[in-house]
């Protein structure tokens, strides 16, 4: 039971990092990204291959051979950073297509297509990614028994969540964040104020992709394996659904989406009576999330924690100059004469 909550905590925190990054792209900057999970996959892969060293002796050759590039054994923080940066580089490539003036819904389709290309190349181009076999035997970053290791990663991922939440908070209330929100609401207004729309969007997207890469790295440290089959496009849709139900725009909503909507529902289906077969639980869960997504969009489009809640606690700033009207110095509209 204890381990169950530990597992939920680690996976929930890693998902939270993904949602914080996705919220920066979609919730705050309004750039649609239907292939967010591809960035998680790239981050995970690069982190793994830069930290795990050469394959174990039994997997070095023959039909069971595990093939992958680099085979470095760097210290894990550097590997994690490389994972994040690789995802950021892929993000840069995608956003350059994304900022072209294309209707937002068609752009969404394009991001799905890019995700497919990435997944397909990974799956089929064996020299680079070892195809559908993926990676396994990824060593723990510190040698610990299972439960203590989970605890270690829980602390690590919670630190990452805290850092990215703080970053989101700073960005949201900064001039940069305000520009992003203006772009989201009305690109023309942002341009009219002389803001560099494309640069702001590129930054938001690349930062969000970086967070996806970090989340991927932590995931691969925790699970110890990596397979392209785990990175299907539907995973990205689940993330978007969770973000919208939690409250897109509001970074606290990302936490609700991660811990409650995604991990909570997934983990608690374990406690369903065993008479319900596993082949039914998965589809039922997806149907539940699909229906919840539609109902939320219809009746509570801003999610559980709407963005407007953030404005209840604005940062301190100088009080604006109150318009003063001096009595008797002319006609004030609305004043009875």
């Amino acid at each position, binding site marked *: 039971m204890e381990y169950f909550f530990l597992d939920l905590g680690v996976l929930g925190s890693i998902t939270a990092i993904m949602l914080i990054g996705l919220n920066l792209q979609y919730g705050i900057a309004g750039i649609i990204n239907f292939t967010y999970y591809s960035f998680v996959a790239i981050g995970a892969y690069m982190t793994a291959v830069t930290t795990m060293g050469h394959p174990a002796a039994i997997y070095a050759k023959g039909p069971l051979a595990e093939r992958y590039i680099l085979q470095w054994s760097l210290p894990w923080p550097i590997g994690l950073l490389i994972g994040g940066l690789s995802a950021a580089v892929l993000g840069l490539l995608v956003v350059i297509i994304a900022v*072209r003036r*294309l209707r937002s819904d068609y752009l969404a389709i*394009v991001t799905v*297509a890019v995700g*497919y*290309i990435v997944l*397909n190349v990974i799956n089929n181009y064996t020299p680079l990614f070892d195809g559908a076999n993926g990676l396994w035997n990824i060593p723990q970053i510190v040698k610990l028994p299972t439960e203590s290791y989970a605890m270690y990663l829980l602390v690590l991922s919670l630190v990452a969540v805290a850092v990215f939440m703080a970053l989101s908070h700073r960005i949201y209330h900064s001039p940069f964040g305000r520009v992003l929100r203006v772009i989201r609401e009305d690109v023309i207004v942002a341009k009219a104020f002389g803001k560099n729309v494309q640069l702001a969007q590129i930054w938001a997207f690349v930062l969000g992709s970086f967070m996806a890469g970090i989340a991927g790295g932590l995931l691969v440290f925790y699970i110890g394996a990596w397979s392209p089959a785990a990175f299907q496009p539907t995973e990205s849709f689940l993330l978007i*659904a969770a973000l919208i139900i939690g409250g897109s725009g509001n970074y606290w909503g990302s936490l609700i989406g991660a811990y409650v909507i995604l991990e909570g529902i997934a983990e608690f289906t374990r406690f369903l009576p065993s008479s319900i077969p596993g082949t039914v639980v998965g589809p039922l869960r997806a149907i539940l999330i699909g229906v919840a*997504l539609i109902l939320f969009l*219809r009746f509570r489009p801003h999610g559980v924690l709407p963005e407007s809640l953030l404005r209840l606690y604005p940062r301190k700033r100088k009080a604006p100059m109150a318009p003063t009207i001096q009595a008797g110095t002319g006609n004030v509209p609305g004043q009875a004469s």
Partner: protein
Amino acid sequence: MVSEFFEAVGFGLVTASVIALGAVSLSLQISVTNYINFAYGDLMTLGAYYALVFDTGLHLNFYLAVLLAGIALGITFVLMHIAVLQPFVRSGARVLTLLVVTIGISFVVQNVIILIWGTSAYRYTVDVGNALHLGPFVLTAGDIVIFGTSVLLLIALQLFLKYTKFGKALRATSNNKDLAMSSGINTDLITHITWGISGFFAAIAGVALAIEENNLRPFEGFNELLIIFSAIILGGIGRQTGALVGSLVIGLAISISAIYLPSAYNSVIAFALLVLVLLLRPQGIFAGREVAD
């Protein structure tokens, strides 16, 4: 080498005709409603399963089963529009919101299919026949029926749009909804009819796809949807001819590239072409609607 090329062109034409069924009807719906239906692929699959029920479950004639599946899916589309999508449109939802709603529908449909039919592959009772040599092409009887049906349906649709009163009203609605409404056209009814037509075509496309792929699986339509979108965007959004040309280009590109590349990269070719076109000519080959949100 030359014969290989012609064979590929033959397959390409069949592939293109399957894509075109989806692309033209989805494009028609987008041009009338002005938002994307992301559930189209999964609904295509649902239509194919409807046909399976009529075919192997009720033991009807195969062609009758496909016709009934088309009508049933058309009704499903209209009901889905009335129950789910129309309330969103009425409340003034943005196109992106509607896209996400249809993703939700796609989730639900896909998993309902898995719940009912499982993930194993099914086949229709129809026999596609052996490969025949027709001039330079090598095709099965099934391929020829698919190609012929697709061409006939697409011609019928064009005639319907051009010469009937409904067709004219539909084109008017797609062109300018407010103006159509003030000319006394019942645009609500026209929108329902559009969804019905889209559903009918989706079922036929789903069955054709299942025959072309040699079996029916739950994710078939979803994977095909992205190829259909590539064709639509390639040709320019909201244009019927654009969707046709786009389908032709994508279909031929997929099958001709299979000569030089492993077949696993089939869909990659379609998407790479899409990304390339968007980089060079964001409005598509045939300039579609103004690019705006």
